[in-house]
Each structure stands twice: as C-alpha cells, then as structure tokens.
C-alpha cells in the first residue's frame, strides 16, 4: 500500500519534470502522453529514461558532466557522439554498472540505484562488446540468462535466433564477433523488455544482419518498447530514430528530432563563384564580371575569393564556410573563380537576397547529410564567427581538435 502511494506521488513529480523538459528542449514536438506503447497504468506518462544533471567522474578524468536527458516511452531515441564522448558511461550509469558522482537518473520512474533490480527486469541491454563465459553453447548461455526473468523466453529465443540465423549449438567462444553480437541481441530482446538499450549495436554485423536487426528493433518499437540507440554512425541513427541527443566530451550538446535536424533551416549550400565584385555584393547588385573586377580588385583568383569571403561573412546564419579558389583556363587574365561551400541556417529569403548580389557560375542548395548536421552541432566556437576565419575549412576538422562546447539548447 505504502509502496503504491509513493509510486503515485513520484508520478506527479515526473510529469512536472517532463513538462519542464519539453519547454527547456525548445519544443521538438509535443509529448506523446501515453508513449506509443505506454502500457501499464502505473507508469503512464513517466519518461522511459530521465536524467537530471547526471555526472560521473573518474578521478580527474572526464566521464560525463551534467547530462540531462528525457527519453519518452515508445520512442526510438538516438544517442550519438564519437568514441569516448560518454555514451557508454551514461548507459552504464543508467544500468547501475557504475555509480554516478552526482545528479539523478531514473528509468520508467524508478531510481537507477535504489530500484536497480526492478528496472533490470524491464530492460534489455546489448553492450558494445559482447563477452560471455567460455565453454558454453549459445543455447545454454541464453537459457541461463532467461532463468533470471519471470517470463518464459524459450519460444522467443528460438524465434530470434532463426531470424538472425544464429546457430544455438555453437560454443560462444568459437563464434565470430558478429555471431557473438547476435547472441547479445537475442539476449537483449528475449524477455520482451519495455526499454531496450543498445550500445553501438551494429558493430560487427554484416549489412544483411543489420537489416534484420533494424527490422527487429522496429517490431519491438511497434510492440511498444522504448529504444535507446547509441552510435557513432549517424546514418544508422537517421535510419531508425525519432530523436537524437548529441554528446560531446561528456556533455549533451543538443537534443533534436531527426526530422527536424535534417529538414530544419540548415542547408548545405555550394556556390560556384564566377568572379565577384566588391560593389556588386555590397552596393549596386549584379554587374558584369570583367569591368568591375578589373577596377576594384587585383587581377587574380585569390581576390575573388577574398571578396566572396567578405560578402558571405556579412550574411548571418552561415557556418562552416570553405572557399576553394580555382584558376580557370585563362588563369591570371580574366577568368578567376572559386567554389564556396557552407551550411546555412536561417531565412532562405535572406540567403537568396545575398546571393543575388553575386555572379554565380553554379549554385546548389541541398539537405545536409546528418554527418554535416552532426558536425555542425558538434563543432563549436565558430557559431559567432559566421564565415570568419575560425570556420573556414573546419567541416572536415577532427572532433578532438575542436574547442569549447556550445551551450545546450
């Protein structure tokens, strides 16, 4: 009785938290109140995963810092960042494998430390590297694992292993990495968990098996399960997730819906600049290339590039600008050109207006790849520089070389 009351009481708190989070997140769509698969009355509306200022430090070494995440029931939530960003640390803290240094974490409304056992009954976990006892056949191992749950998993084990084409009679130690991973998938899904936590699940799986795996995850999702999908491969996150959190150096940099990330104002713009006049851009609109160019600029390609750079710098919303000057057939005389490439986030009319002042040989405005979007959030420091020096050529930069994080949005 007392227990029920505390659950109810907690439910109220969580609801408030969820509402707060929604506002805080900057509104990436309304909350699916029941979750797609919000079954069971007691946890209706409770987030599948909720962390508040979750922090884990390893002595002086960085773990995760101030991680705030809300994963709603019934969604497939992506968790992306490069190796060492803190994805696994977050997951391991949630599962109680390591102890948090500070903050709070709950799964399905239950505290990750106090209610660990109750949580684990409802969670399926696939670690990034799968290790099992030596000398055991996959069948025996899965039966051992199944014995911990209060449901009969035998039918599901058979079903899953058939789908994945897994030989249950092979010894786990004799298995290839991919086959071991299959055992891990079966183990993670066999008890029909309400929350499935996948830590880099596709590594080691060939494309065919990956496809089966994604189908399985979609089926689990349709059944009502929530999925936390951690990965450093954006295309697979793009393939399956509803929302994505980007983690960088232990901190959440952004939480976005995948659709929003791809279809938002961010565009990849590539310009073939066929000679640019300073006046043309900043004052009087378009002009013929030859005359204005000769009057106002020196007679070489680099000037055109400098002009374009200056012109683009004045446009707000341009990021990650790269400029490649290329000499045309008559280099040094009248044909100088450059290719400018950048990400644009903002009103498309302003962009078009700015481009109208340039003489362009070519223009391409495309959806950025998620990789580019990711780098866009992931990289930092160039936000206010616009097309300034800090941003030029930074698209291909290594994450490790990048400077301060952007504040969480």
């Amino acid at each position: 009785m007392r227990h029920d009351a505390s659950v109810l009481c907690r439910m109220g708190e969580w609801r408030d938290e969820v509402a707060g989070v929604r506002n805080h997140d900057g509104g990436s769509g309304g909350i699916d109140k029941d979750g797609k698969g919000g079954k069971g009355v007691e946890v209706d509306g409770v987030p599948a995963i909720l962390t508040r200022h979750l922090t884990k430090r390893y002595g002086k070494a960085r773990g995760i810092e101030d991680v705030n995440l809300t994963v709603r029931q019934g969604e497939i939530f992506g968790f992306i960042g490069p190796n060492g960003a803190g994805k696994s640390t977050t997951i391991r803290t949630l599962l109680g494998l390591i102890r948090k240094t500070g903050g709070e974490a709950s799964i399905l409304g239950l505290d990750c430390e106090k209610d660990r056992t109750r949580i684990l009954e409802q969670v399926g976990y696939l670690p990034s590297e799968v290790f099992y006892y030596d000398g055991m056949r996959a069948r025996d191992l899965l039966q051992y694992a199944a014995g911990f749950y209060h449901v009969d998993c035998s039918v599901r084990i058979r079903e899953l292993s058939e789908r994945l084409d897994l030989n249950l009679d092979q010894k786990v130690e004799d298995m290839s990495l991919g086959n071991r991973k299959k055992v891990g998938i079966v183990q993670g899904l066999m008890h029909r968990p309400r929350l499935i936590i996948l830590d880099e699940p596709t590594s080691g799986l060939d494309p065919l098996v990956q496809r089966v795996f994604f189908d399985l995850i979609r089926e689990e999702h349709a059944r009502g399960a929530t999925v936390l999908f951690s990965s450093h491969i954006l295309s697979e996150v793009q393939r399956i997730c509803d929302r994505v959190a980007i983690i960088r150096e232990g901190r959440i940099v952004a939480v976005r819906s995948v659709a929003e990330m791809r279809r938002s104002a961010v565009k990849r713009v590539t310009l073939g600049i066929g000679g640019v006049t300073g006046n043309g851009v900043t004052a009087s609109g378009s002009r013929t290339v030859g005359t204005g160019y000769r009057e106002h600029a020196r007679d070489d390609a680099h000037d055109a590039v400098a002009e374009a750079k200056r012109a683009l710098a004045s446009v707000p919303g341009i990021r990650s600008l790269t400029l490649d000057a290329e000499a045309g057939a008559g280099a040094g005389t009248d044909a100088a050109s450059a290719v400018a490439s950048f990400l644009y986030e903002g009103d498309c009319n302003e962009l078009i207006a700015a481009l109208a002042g340039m003489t362009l040989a070519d223009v391409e405005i495309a959806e950025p790849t998620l990789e580019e979007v990711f780098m866009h959030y992931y990289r930092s420091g160039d936000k206010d520089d616009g097309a300034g020096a800090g941003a030029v050529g930074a698209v291909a930069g290594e994450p490790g070389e990048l400077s301060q994080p952007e504040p969480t949005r």
Partner: protein
Amino acid sequence: MNAHAILHVYAFELKAQLRSFLIGTATLLAVAILLLAGAYPIYRDSKSSVEQVIDGFPPQFAALFGVNDDVFSFGGFYRFSSLYLMLTMAIMACAWGLAVLGREKRAKATDFLFVMPMPRGAVYAAKLAAGLTMVAVAGLAFLATAAAVYTRFRDDPTATAIALPRLLLAASSLFGVGVLFLAFGALAAVLLRRIRSVSGIATTFGIFGFMLVSLPEMTGESKYRIVSPFTWFNVSEALDYGRYEAGYLMLAAAVALVCLAAGAAVYVRGEVRAE
C-alpha cells in the same frame, strides 16, 4: 523472488565448477590414501632406517617438513600428514573461491551478470554458497576416507589408541582450512583487477600457509601461530584431547568472516569497468 535467482546462480556455479571440484576432491582423497594407507605402514615397518635418516636432518629442515620422532605412530603420522592434507585443501578451496567469484572477471562477462535482475548481494551469496558446498562435500568425502583407512589398522595399537571420533574431529580441521582459504580466494577474486591464473594464485596462497606453519616450530615461539592459519586448527589437540583451542577457532572464524564481508562489500559496491 530472490530465492529463485539465488538457486539459479548456485546451480550454475556448481555445474560450471563440477570438473575442477571432482579433480580437486580426487586429489585430496588420493593424497590421504597415499599417505595414511600407503606411506604410514612403510614408515612404521622400517622405523630404524627412517630414524637414521631423520637424525641426519638439520632440526630446522625436519621441522619445515613436519617430520619428527612421532611419525611411527598412527596419530603422529596423521599429524605429519595433516600438514599436506591441509595444503591440498587450502589450494583447492582458494582456487574455488577465485574461480567462482572471479568467473565474470576472467570471462569479461561481468556486464552480462550484473544487468540481470538480481541484487549483487544475492549473486555474491549464491556464489559463496556454491563455494561452501564444495568445501563441505570435499570435507565429508575426506572424513569418510579417513574413517575407511582407519578401519584398516585394527591390528595397530597406535591406531586403536585413538578413538574414531577423535580422528574424525582431527580430520574436520580440513573444513576450517577449506572455509578460510575459500574466503581468501573469494576476497582475492573481488580485489584483484585481473585474475590471470586461478591455480597460480591458489598455489601461492596454499604454499604460503604451508611455509608459515614452520615459523612457530622453527623459532619455538608460539606467538607466531597467530599469523599461521594452518596452526589455528591444532590437530594434536584434537587427537590427544578431543578438542580445538577455542581462541584460535574464533580467530579463524573472525578472519574468514572479515574476508567474506569485505569481499561482499566490494562486490556489491564495486564499479564494473568497461572492457
């Protein structure tokens, strides 16, 4: 709910350990039979020549191996043998503790076990219960063997001078050694970051216990018994007076409990490093 899970882990550990248990127990029984049924009659029947050999030993050397003039009686030979029986039991029990509680660490499967819906304390209890079961069964098998060997010496007055219950009491010292070294093994399994070789570590523990026996004997200072676990179970006292020294028994129990409790605390609270 936990009872079911505890039983599940308990059964798994017993099954996983069965081979090593059978080998260890067979070794213990073989050592017992070789010494008591095989070597003792030979010693007894060639007393004079053995005495000559022993006289040639430096006294410390003889003490190191537990040899003295007493080895020509059944009781005396049992006391001499018990040192080696204890060594065997110590190595075995320590290995079981290491293997059972370090199983996940060695296989890097800690993630697997610790995301199962079972409190870590219950996992520890189940594994410990499996270890204690093995020690108990091995100990009982040894008692049975000792009793069977004893019945062979009905015509030996030095054997019949010792009542069977006293012999069994003396043989029960192996339970104590077993539990103690199981606890050492369990604690080592929990504390060591990596367990490279179960048998290597267990042998080190066993040999160390064996060597420490000679410390009080060679120095003649009984105060050193406090650091010599084998001597906490005084076989002479059991054979001669049918009892153990309560103080040392309590010391043994306290040390075992502290090791097991410390092991449990670390096991329950410890962090699982990503492999």
